[in-house]
C-alpha cells in the first residue's frame, strides 16, 4: 500500500493507533502459527504411530515405511486439506454475511443454506436411493448443492424482488431452515433403516471422504471468493457505517449485497455439499477475530479465513483423538465445542455496546 518508513512516521503521532495496528497484525500472525501447528499436529496424530521425520518424508512419498506414505498421502493429508479449505470458506462466508446483512447472527447455517443441503442429501439418499448405490458419491453432493442453492435463491429473490430489509432476510433464513428441516424429517419418516443410517451419517459431517478433485474444486471456489472479498474490503467497512453513508461513498449497496450473497451462498453450498452439515464455524470464527482486531475488514477477512481453518482443523483433531481409534462426527463436535465458545465470546467483557 505504501512504504514502511512513511507509515511509521505517521503512526508515531499516536501510539494508540500503532498499538492497535500491531495488535491486529500480531493476531493474524498468531492465527497463522496456530494453523501451521494444527496442521502438523493433525498430520502426526492418529492411530498409526509415525515418527516426525518419516511423516515429513511421507508427504513427498519418500518415507522408507510405505505404510506411512499411504497413511499420510491418502488419509491424513486429504483430511487436513479438506478441513483447512472448508474451514476457511465457512469462516470467510460467515464474516461477509454478517457484515452485508448487518447481523452478527448471519452465517451459512443460520440462513438455512446448510439445512437446504441437508434436505438435498436426504432427497438423494431416500427418494433416489443414492445412499447404497455406487452413484451416491456423485448424487449426494449434487442434490445437497441443489438444495442449498435453492435456499440461497429463495433468500436472494426475497431480498431482490420484495426489497425486504436485512433483518427480515435473517428471519426469513430462520423460517426457511425450519421448513427444510421439517421436510427432511418427513423424508426420514418414510425411509428404511439403511437409508436412515446413510443420511444420519451424512449429516454428521465427514472430512475424510472428499477426493483430491473435490478438495481442489472447494479450494478454487473458496480462493476466488476470498480474493474477491479482500479486494472489496473497504466496501464492507463502508457498509458498517449504515446504508445511507455507504451510498454517499459511492457504493451501490444493493448490488454489493446481492453479489456478495451469491458468492457466499455458492461457497457455502459447495462446501456443505461435500463435507456435510458443519455448523458454528462460520458463526464463531469472525466473532473471535472481531474481539481482537475490531470491525476493520482489512484484518477481519484474513483473520476469519485463518480462524475458520484452525477451528475446523482443531475440531477434527479433537474428534479423531479424544477416543481414538473411533472418529467422532465433526459436525457434532463443532456444534458441541462451538456453542460454549460462542457463549463465552458473547458474555465475556461485554461492558459496552
Amino acid at each position: 500500500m505504501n512504504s514502511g518508513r512513511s507509515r511509521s512516521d505517521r503512526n508515531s503521532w499516536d501510539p494508540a493507533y500503532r498499538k492497535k495496528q500491531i495488535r491486529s497484525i500480531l493476531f493474524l500472525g498468531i492465527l497463522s502459527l496456530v494453523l501451521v501447528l494444527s496442521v502438523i499436529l493433525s498430520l502426526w496424530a492418529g492411530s498409526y504411530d509415525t515418527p516426525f521425520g518419516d511423516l515429513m518424508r511421507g508427504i513427498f512419498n519418500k518415507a522408507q515405511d510405505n505404510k506411512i506414505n499411504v497413511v499420510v498421502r491418502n488419509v491424513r493429508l486429504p483430511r487436513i486439506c479438506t478441513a483447512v479449505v472448508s474451514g476457511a470458506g465457512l469462516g470467510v462466508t460467515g464474516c461477509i454475511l454478517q457484515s452485508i446483512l448487518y447481523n452478527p447472527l448471519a452465517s451459512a447455517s443460520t440462513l438455512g443454506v446448510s439445512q437446504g443441503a441437508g434436505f438435498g442429501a436426504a432427497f438423494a439418499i431416500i427418494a433416489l436411493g443414492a445412499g447404497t448405490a455406487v452413484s451416491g458419491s456423485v448424487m449426494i453432493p449434487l442434490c445437497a448443492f441443489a438444495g442449498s442453492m435453492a435456499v440461497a435463491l429463495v433468500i436472494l429473490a426475497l431480498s431482490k424482488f420484495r426489497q425486504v430489509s436485512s433483518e427480515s432476510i435473517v428471519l426469513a433464513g430462520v423460517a426457511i431452515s425450519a421448513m427444510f428441516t421439517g421436510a427432511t424429517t418427513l423424508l426420514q419418516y418414510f425411509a428404511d433403516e439403511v437409508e436412515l443410517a446413510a443420511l444420519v451419517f451424512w449429516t454428521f459431517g465427514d472430512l475424510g471422504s472428499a477426493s483430491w478433485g473435490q478438495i481442489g474444486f472447494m479450494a478454487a471456489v473458496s480462493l476466488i471468493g476470498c480474493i474477491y472479498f479482500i479486494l472489496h474490503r473497504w466496501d464492507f467497512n463502508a457498509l458498517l457505517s449504515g446504508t445511507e453513508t455507504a451510498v454517499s461513498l459511492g457504493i451501490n449497496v444493493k448490488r454489493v449485497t446481492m453479489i456478495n450473497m451469491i458468492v457466499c451462498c455458492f461457497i457455502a453450498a459447495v462446501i456443505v455439499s461435500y463435507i456435510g452439515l458443519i455448523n458454528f464455524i462460520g458463526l464463531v470464527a469472525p466473532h473471535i477475530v472481531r474481539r481482537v482486531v475490531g470491525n476493520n475488514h482489512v484484518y477481519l477477512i484474513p483473520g476469519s479465513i485463518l480462524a475458520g481453518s484452525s477451528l475446523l482443523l482443531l475440531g477434527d483433531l479433537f474428534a479423531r483423538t479424544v477416543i481414538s481409534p473411533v472418529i467422532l462426527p465433526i459436525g457434532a463436535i463443532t456444534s458441541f465445542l462451538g456453542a460454549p465458545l460462542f457463549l463465552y465470546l458473547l458474555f465475556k467483557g461485554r461492558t459496552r455496546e
Partner: protein
Amino acid sequence: MIEIKDLRYHYQGGPEILKSISFRLEEGRFLAILGNNGAGKSTMLKCFNKIIFPDSGSVVMDGEEILNLSAKEVAKRIAFVAQTVPNNQITVHDMVMLGRRPYMRWGFTQEDHKIVHEVMESLHLLHMRGRFLNELSGGERQKVMLARALAQQPKILLLDEPTSSLDLKNQYQVLQAVKDICGNGQITAMVVIHDLNLALRFCDRFLLLQNGEVCRYGKQEVLDRKAIWEVYGVHGEVLDIQGRKIVMVD
C-alpha cells in the same frame, strides 16, 4: 454554484413528498434547511447526491448534471453526514480513511494518507485516531463523521441533523467547523437543522420548506414572524440582540 430545478419525489404508493423544488446556491455558502417534521427536508437533501433518486428534476453543479453521474463520481463531489452516527469497533483513522474510498483503486496511496492526516489535524482528531469509534462520545463521533466526509474532498457537504444528539458545546464545535470550511470558499454546505438559533448563528442562507415546497429562501431576513408562523405554526419573534438575531417563541 449548485442549481436545483423542479425536483420531485414520492415514496412508492405514497403522496408526493417533494413538489417542484427549485433554488440555486453560490459557492462557499452555508445553507440551513428548515421546516417541520415531514416537510421533506431530509428527503430533499438525500436527492442531491442520489441516496434517493428523484422522480424528475435536475441537480446541476458547475454546469454538470449530478443525477447522471455514477455513484463514485457523485461521492467525489458531494459528501453526506447521516443523522445516525455509527457505533462500531473501527478506529477513527480507519473511519476517516473511508472517505477516500471513492478515489481508491486497489489500495490507498500516499496522497490519501496525507489528505486524511490533514483533515484529522484540522478537526483536532489526531490525538484520538487510534481509538475505536465505540469508545468515543457522541460529539466526538459526529466530528469523526464530518472528517470522513471532508476526506472525500467534496465541493458540497450535506449534513442531516448533525447536531440533534449533541450537547451545547459539541453543537457549536461541529457547526463552527463547517462554517470555517465554508468560509474558505472551497465548500458549499447544506444542513438540515431544527434549532433556529443555531441556524441563525452559523448559516448565511435559509431555505424554509413546507409540505414539500420551498416556502421562503434567502438571507436572514426571510426568517421573520410571518414565516415562523407559516412554517412552524407558532408565534415567534426574531430579535436583534447585540447584533445577533435570536428567535424567541411566544
